[in-house]
């Protein structure tokens, strides 16, 4: 018995300790930082300082007086200025649109792979994963080349638009570019769970439905789509959440109004040096993600019940 408990601690102890130290504690510190004042030149307003004259460590604040070092101001700022709420909405909109487009592109592909002869399937799936193994920045960069105003693609698009009489459009540094690249870097995350789900469908169900006179459209909406919902939700979560926290894509291909929450967080930490407000934004993003995850679990459960 004691041996068992020892084994349990020996096995689970090291990863537990490591993650407590390098994940749980940093997260807790960040949550605490949200209630602090920013330091004059970045970081946090220090709680103590080494006096250069005496060499002694001095407490800079009156420990009994919480208002000296704890504040709700960072949160009030977030809730009082509508721009931040709007930015959250916009980021949700970007991530949501990305998810929907990924779904539309991934569904036919996943369906087709799942219906193709077994011996081809692994190869077809591998071909989806392969580009995703190249570095994320390279994938973003590739579109910077394609969309650049001097590139063949942008020139031909603008030539076509010119014929119709619409002025040249700016492709790079635009909303369009941000969404396009978000879709591009996240697409495999949608294909894989969808495929994993669609592969398991029982074809007999579809044949039976056809025998009963259901047309292709009905067969899809009444059978395939409801059965594939768990895959859809899994894919949606895998695309939506990373897209929501993205900062590099808007940074590299977005214009002046293309920024997302991630950019603002990055700005607070690396440019404005306002850590407390950056922490508030991070907490809000975490809460948003947790709420979504909870919602997805609920819907997922409901979906399962319906499917049964």
């Amino acid at each position, binding site marked *: 018995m004691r041996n068992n408990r020892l084994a349990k601690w020996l096995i689970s102890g090291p990863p537990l300790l490591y993650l407590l130290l390098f994940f749980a504690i940093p997260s807790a510190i960040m949550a605490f930082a949200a209630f602090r004042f920013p330091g004059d030149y970045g970081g946090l307003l220090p709680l103590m300082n080494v006096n250069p004259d005496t060499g002694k460590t001095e407490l800079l604040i009156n420990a009994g007086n919480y208002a000296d070092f704890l504040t709700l101001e960072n949160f009030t700022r977030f809730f009082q200025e509508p721009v931040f709420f709007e930015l959250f909405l916009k980021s949700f909109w970007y991530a949501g649109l990305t998810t929907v487009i990924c779904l539309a592109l991934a569904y036919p592909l996943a369906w*087709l792979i799942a219906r193709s002869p077994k011996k081809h399937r692994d190869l077809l799936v591998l071909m989806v994963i392969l580009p995703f193994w190249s570095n994320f*920045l390279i994938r973003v960069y590739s579109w910077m080349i394609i969309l650049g105003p001097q590139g063949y693609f942008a020139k031909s698009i603008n030539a076509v638009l010119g014929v119709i009489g619409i002025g040249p459009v700016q492709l790079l540094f635009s909303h369009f570019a941000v969404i396009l690249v978000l879709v591009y870097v996240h697409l495999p995350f949608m294909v894989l769970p969808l495929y994993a789900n669609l592969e398991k469908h029982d074809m007999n169900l579809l044949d039976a439905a056809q025998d009963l006179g259901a047309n292709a459209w009905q067969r899809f909406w009444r059978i395939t789509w409801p059965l594939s919902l768990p895959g859809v939700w899994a894919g949606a979560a895998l695309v939506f959440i990373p897209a929501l926290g993205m900062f590099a894509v808007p940074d590299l291909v977005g214009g002046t109004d293309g920024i997302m929450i991630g950019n603002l967080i*990055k700005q607070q930490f690396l440019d404005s040096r306002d850590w407390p407000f950056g922490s508030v934004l991070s907490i809000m993003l975490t809460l948003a993600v947790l709420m979504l995850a909870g919602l997805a679990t609920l819907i997922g459960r409901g979906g399962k019940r319906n499917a049964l």
Partner: protein
Amino acid sequence: MHSKQSKWLWGAASLVYLFLYLPLIIVVVYSFNDSKLNAEWVGFTFKWYEILFNDAQMLTAARNTLIIGLVTSVCATVLGTLAGLAMYKYKLRLLPVLVLTPIAIPEILMGVSLLIFFVMLNMTLGLVSIALSHIAFCIGFVAIVVRSRLQGMDESLVEAARDLGATPVQAFRLVTLPLIMPGIIAGALMAFTLSIDDFVITFFTAGAGASTLPLQIYSMIRIAVTPEVNAISTLLMLLTLALIVIASKVAPGAIKAQS
């Protein structure tokens, strides 16, 4: 009717494949283009690779990336395997949450919290802080792969070994470990690729002293779109391709397990 439908679907699917590959092909092609501009095709050259191999900063970054990747891979595999075993064997509450949350939340959150943490500890940001952070987010991926391998394992084999008089340690070493080895190898490869590819967490925990290839690429792209980036990208893609081929030889189940 079926064939008409599937023709249409195949068309759509090929377009999606084209969408996936065309940008990368363009990157590769332009790495041989004899023009700084990445816009019009001028002529064939190896010059960008030459510049690349003489770029001291790029080489340092490559070395850093490799060191961090190897350290991360080893440490995360050990810790992640333990975590996978623990989650499989015992009913735990805290560990699964700690293992899985870093995977589920946007990376930037982990990046900034680790930045605050390291600065508060007054730690020099650099190779060490990057590796520590990479290990933290790779543990979860290894643990998942190992646990799913364990779930697919026939438990009666371990019981048989125990019945034959093997101690728990012997049973683990002689039966369980060989059986889950493909999962562990897959996990190690995954941790390695995640580490050498990581941009976001590295970006926050690197400070200004140490650079890795993704950071180097990022700062180059921000300054100007130059074919040297195409060249390094092409080489990196070749490297990952080689890793995949090796993986499929060493551990045939590995690639599948990762998807």
